[in-house]
């Protein structure tokens, strides 16, 4: 590689081409606008927006968040503006940027998943859907779709049937065997998988003897979840043939490189945005520096390069 030629960082997530493997994680980057003062959105591989449902949602009562050692708990309750307001108020602003827009969707019933997916299809400026299956199925006694391979397969089928966009299914880590769910989603036609969503956790105010979160339990994220996320990505890339996107505790370039070496084709940056709004920019630069330092011409040479015996 000649000294001044920059390594290729373009990666392929199914039919979706990213200029680099760094995406934002849903719910941690708002609708992009919030971070415009800190981030040049044109430089991002992709923006994944806050989870969208058919109708607007108020979310959970406060308090909704709490810091934990090396991470945080959240129980936002999927508050969002709903499909209509997203298309009317948020998407137009995002269209001006030269990046890929991935819309994270969820529902409480199979039908709802399908309706959201179709409502977002065939619309300029939306490049892919990410399906959050870590939601309670109100028709199945609130059992979380993503914790059951069959329910995960159903959701994937419904969404695939409702859209022509590439479909990324986002897996829950709160399962006995993530590869089962991964295979079920692949079989149902998922174009890619992203993992992990938050680990279920809890923390208590011992002076008041009440939970720190009004919702009692919440989702754990941040550096603390990285070892678990990395292990699940490593298991999943060897269980499926579709691309896998690594999520969980990516704070700096080194963390992203770990996921890429484990076999993830891209990473999503979540909680890191809160503690360092410029995290994505620094991670993009850091990955390129790593490639140069190790004499690699192409990030794809790094992906899946873990040596084991």
């Amino acid at each position, binding site marked *: 590689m000649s000294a001044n030629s920059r390594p290729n960082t373009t990666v392929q997530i199914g039919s979706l081409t990213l200029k680099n493997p760094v995406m934002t994680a849903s719910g941690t980057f*708002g609708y992009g606008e919030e*971070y415009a003062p800190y981030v040049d959105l044109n430089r991002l591989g992709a923006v994944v927006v806050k989870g969208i449902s058919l109708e607007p949602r108020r979310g959970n009562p*406060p308090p909704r968040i709490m*810091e934990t*050692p090396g*991470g*945080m708990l959240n129980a936002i309750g999927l*508050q969002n503006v709903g499909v209509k307001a997203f298309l009317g108020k948020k998407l137009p602003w995002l269209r001006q940027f030269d990046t890929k827009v991935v819309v994270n969707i969820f529902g409480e019933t199979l039908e709802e998943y399908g309706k959201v997916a179709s409502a977002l299809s065939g619309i300029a400026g939306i490049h892919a859907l990410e399906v959050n299956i870590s939601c309670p199925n109100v028709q199945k006694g609130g059992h979380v779709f993503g914790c059951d391979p069959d329910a995960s397969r159903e959701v994937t089928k419904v969404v695939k049937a409702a859209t022509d966009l590439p479909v990324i299914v986002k897996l829950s880590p709160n399962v006995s065997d993530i590869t089962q769910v991964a295979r079920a989603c692949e079989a149902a036609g998922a174009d890619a998988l992203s993992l992990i969503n938050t680990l279920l956790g809890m923390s208590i105010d011992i002076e008041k003897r009440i939970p720190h979160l009004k919702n009692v339990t919440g989702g754990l994220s941040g*550096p603390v979840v990285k070892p678990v996320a990395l292990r699940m990505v490593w298991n999943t890339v060897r269980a499926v043939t579709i691309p896998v996107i690594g999520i969980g505790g990516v704070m700096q370039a080194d963390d992203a490189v770990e996921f890429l070496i484990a076999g993830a084709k891209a990473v999503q940056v979540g909680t890191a945005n809160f503690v*360092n709004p410029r995290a994505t920019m620094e991670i993009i630069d850091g990955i390129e520096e790593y490639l140069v330092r190790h004499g690699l011409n192409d990030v794809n040479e790094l992906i899946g390069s873990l040596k084991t015996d």
Partner: protein
Amino acid sequence: MFTREDMTATILSNAEVAPCHYLMTLAVSKVFGQAQPGQFVMLRPVGRGFPFLGRPLGIYSLAEHADGARIEVLYRAAGKGTKVISALCEGDLIEILGPLGNRFEHKPGMKTAVLVAGGIGIAPLVFLVERLSLAALPERPGLILYIGARDSGSLLGIDRMRAFGVDVRVSTDDGSAGYRGPVTDLLLRDMASFDAATTEIYVCGPNPMLKRMSGICENHTVPCQVLMEERMACGMGACLGCTIEVRTPSGVEYRQVCADGPVFDLRSIVWR
């Protein structure tokens, strides 16, 4: 666009000014020159595992100069995170985000500004008064501060307030200074004397005091702005973590303290 430099401050001093209360002076970038009263910053020690999230602290004072700005924050070592911050020394770097949030407002015709502070709640009000005393108002507004604290030792910022010509009325829980009892009692006595058309009340303090204030406001019409506090992660409206409930024409809705606030119409707040 904000740079790394805009997000890094140098600690010029970090001194204990009262038991568990600290005054920190920070050398910051030019971007903080736009900071307005009521706005806050998120502070986070550099390169430590803990605290993981930034800590929101109001701006106590701001001074611009040629190649940057200087801000002060007045804070209480309330828990583990602020204790770590209070242990930082002159010359240490600290990660800073800001200026964040909305600001205290005042109508052009304001003649009297009534400030109500509980304990450390004085901090953002000092910055407000500094700006009000410079504000382009038809006539310089009368400034009255009602401040309550646990004891005389915990009364902070009063000297600065007096320096700005503020009429200071003190109360303490133990009676070691001024009136013995909640500061809201002091205010209540005078409420009737304020003209709702030309007076603005600004409140900052602990929740119990804020709740008493909203009780008072039910029987009076003087406009009242309050600085609300809630746990935060991002400080910029992205995580939807810092939620409170407010009454709106279209019913009770959630608002984000960091982005829609921290300053709200006290009468709109739904107290838990």
